[in-house]
């Protein structure tokens, strides 16, 4: 809630209270812009909680990023020791000192060397500090750890009044100061410094839970401004301190409808042919050896092939191991690693606590700017936290990734074969797409089946596909759904062969029938031909009779004519012809 306020109005607070940005990743976000400008801030914590580093980083970042020179007054470490200690964070104190950007003054107090007699004050300290500030025009001051004065000087009354005067004096000087203090029993600091510094108090904590330590930071008090009140984990590494602000729990993230292919064509087809939504979270869960990592590697490979960056967090295997193993399924990841598109980040989960993992992931993402990340597997994180904690962490991670529009693929090992009832690490409700790979044990062999448990906002297949891993890669094969139920593996092959045989026999039968038909037709056709010729001969016969009849009729007519003419006494000129004709 507090975070929400910070997000909404970081600038509105500044006219009320000027803030000095620390430059420490995340801290400025929590404090809404930094620590109070021109006022002292107390950083307290146990030994080794990072007080000195945080204050030195404040000075160095001020000098480098904000052009504000700073003075470090070290009561514990010598200047050269301090320089060596922070060199591991990439801070070159000696160079900065030479450039007059910072000044380190070591205050050495040795009880055995000092005798006290009578009244005194700490003007010497004031003068030294004042001189240091004036000599480089410092705007920032760190006093680390001023409590050492109490071990060096015995007159508590003088010390307390002088400290009060010192903090007033610092305020008058207008410098932004950090005072560090060792944590005491029942109070924030051993000497009760919090009485004097009342504007801003930051508590650092170093806690070990289940043998895993996590550094945390909490702002106990920040007068005059809104601030995050939670405990925030922070990380110290070669780039300094990063604080992880718990990302907002508002659900107002931008959503796109762009898709990103999974690398397995058949899987994309199961999801409407286009793959996942960009910025979505995908969970691949399954029992051991079901090919979760292979799916993840395929996704990573596909992303790199499309020229996008992919960050692969491996919690189980080393990068080399993954690359080698993936080569066996014809997936060559090393070229993407070489081209810089793919980056492996391998760490045992027990390396640090969950929060630290989250911080580390955040940092890597900010640095590498991938469009896809893979976490393989999240189940291993259980070893460093309870189910609830893991879920909590993942919620925040998903939240952050969605804000950045990064697609994430988690793999999760389902210990229970009865997966449908189990919500994996409790994240199944958070993820957008849940792919389930499971064993199908049948007919004396084990096969992999895959289905989409859910996929928000897209049409997806409800079928169980057989998931085949071969030398040439991954593929999804439609399982055989027949009268005998679902068949996979060799049973499916057998069924397929059986079907092919049936097909061949059927084909053969069909061709035989065809031939018979042809033959029948031939027979019939020949019959028709003979009938035709028979008909013709009959017709001929009939025609002949008919013609004879006609001829006879004609002859008879002629004869009658002749007879008639003879009777009339006409000359018979044609008679011989006609008779001869006859």
């Amino acid at each position: 809630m507090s975070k929400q306020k910070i997000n909404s109005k970081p600038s509105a607070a500044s006219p009320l209270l000027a803030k000095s940005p620390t430059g420490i990743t995340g801290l400025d976000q929590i404090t809404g812009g930094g620590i109070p400008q021109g006022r002292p801030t107390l950083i307290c914590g146990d030994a080794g909680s990072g007080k000195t580093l945080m204050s030195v980083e404040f000075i160095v970042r001020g000098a480098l990023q904000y052009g504000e020179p700073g003075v470090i007054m070290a009561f514990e470490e010598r200047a050269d020791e301090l320089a060596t200690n922070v060199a591991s964070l990439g801070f070159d104190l000696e160079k900065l000192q030479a450039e007059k950007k910072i000044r380190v003054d070591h205050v050495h107090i040795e009880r055995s060397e000092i005798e006290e007699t009578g009244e005194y004050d700490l003007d010497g300290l004031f003068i030294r500090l004042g001189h240091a500030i004036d000599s480089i025009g410092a705007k920032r001051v760190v006093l680390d750890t001023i409590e050492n004065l109490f071990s060096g000087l015995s007159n508590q009354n003088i010390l307390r009044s002088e400290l009060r005067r010192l903090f007033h004096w610092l305020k008058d000087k207008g410098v932004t100061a950090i005072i560090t203090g060792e944590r005491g029993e029942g109070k924030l600091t051993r000497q009760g410094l919090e009485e004097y510094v009342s504007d801003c108090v930051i508590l650092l904590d170093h806690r070990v839970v289940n043998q895993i330590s996590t550094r945390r930071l909490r702002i106990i008090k920040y007068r005059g401004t809104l601030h995050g009140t939670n405990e925030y984990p922070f990380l110290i590494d070669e780039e300094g301190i990063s604080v992880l602000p718990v990302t907002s729990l508002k659900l107002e993230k931008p959503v796109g409808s762009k898709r990103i292919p999974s690398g397995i064509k058949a899987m994309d087809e199961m999801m409407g042919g286009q793959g996942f939504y960009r910025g979505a979270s995908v969970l691949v869960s399954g029992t051991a050896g079901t090919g979760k990592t292979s799916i993840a590697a395929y996704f990573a490979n596909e992303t790199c092939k499309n020229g996008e960056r992919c960050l692969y967090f491996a919690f189980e295997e080393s990068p080399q191991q993954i690359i080698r193993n993936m080569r066996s399924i014809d997936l060559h990841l090393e070229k993407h690693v070489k081209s810089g598109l793919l980056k492996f980040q391998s760490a045992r989960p027990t390396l640090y606590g969950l929060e630290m993992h989250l911080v580390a992931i955040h940092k890597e993402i900010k640095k590498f700017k991938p469009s896809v990340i893979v976490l393989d597997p999240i189940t291993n994180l259980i070893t460093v936290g309870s189910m609830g904690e893991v879920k909590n962490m993942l919620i925040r991670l998903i939240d952050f990734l969605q804000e950045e529009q990064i697609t994430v693929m988690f793999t999760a090992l389902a210990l229970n074969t009865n997966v449908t009832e189990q919500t994996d690490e409790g994240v199944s409700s958070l993820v957008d797409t849940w792919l389930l790979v499971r064993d199908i044990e049948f007919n004396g062999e084990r096969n992999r089946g895959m289905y989409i448990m859910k996929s928000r906002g897209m049409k997806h297949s409800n079928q169980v596909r057989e998931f085949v891993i071969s030398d040439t890669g991954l593929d999804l094969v439609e399982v055989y759904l027949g009268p005998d139920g679902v068949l996979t593996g060799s049973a499916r092959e057998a069924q397929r062969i059986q079907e092919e045989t049936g097909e061949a026999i059927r084909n053969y039968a069909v061709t035989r029938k065809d031939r018979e038909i042809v033959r029948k037709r031939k027979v019939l056709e020949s019959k028709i031909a003979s009938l035709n010729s028979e008909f013709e001969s009959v017709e001929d016969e009939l025609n002949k009779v008919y013609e004879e009849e006609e001829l006879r009729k004609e002859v008879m007519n002629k004869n009658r004519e002749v007879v008639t003419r003879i009777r009339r006494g006409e000359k018979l000129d044609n008679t011989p012809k006609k008779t001869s004709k006859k």
Partner: protein
Amino acid sequence: MKLEEKKWELRLYVAGKTPKSVAAFTNLKKYCEEHLQGQYRIEVIDLLENPQLAEGDQILAIPTLVRKVPEPIRKIIGDLSNEEKVLVGLNIIPV
């Protein structure tokens, strides 16, 4: 104690002419005259004029008396009102 062999170099750091500084100087002068006649040298450094000198001798409190010679360096802070403490602190008389 073979005082005659030793040369005493004392430095008194003050910040302006405050009553405490004046008292410290007066007291110191008195003790030295009593115990180290002719063998000592007192240098008074006003940090208001030379603030850069404070760092060298690790000065915190004002006034501070530093015994530079003989070694080892000893420091006494305060107005030096307790004579015995000063003399023991400076190793002028044994404890």
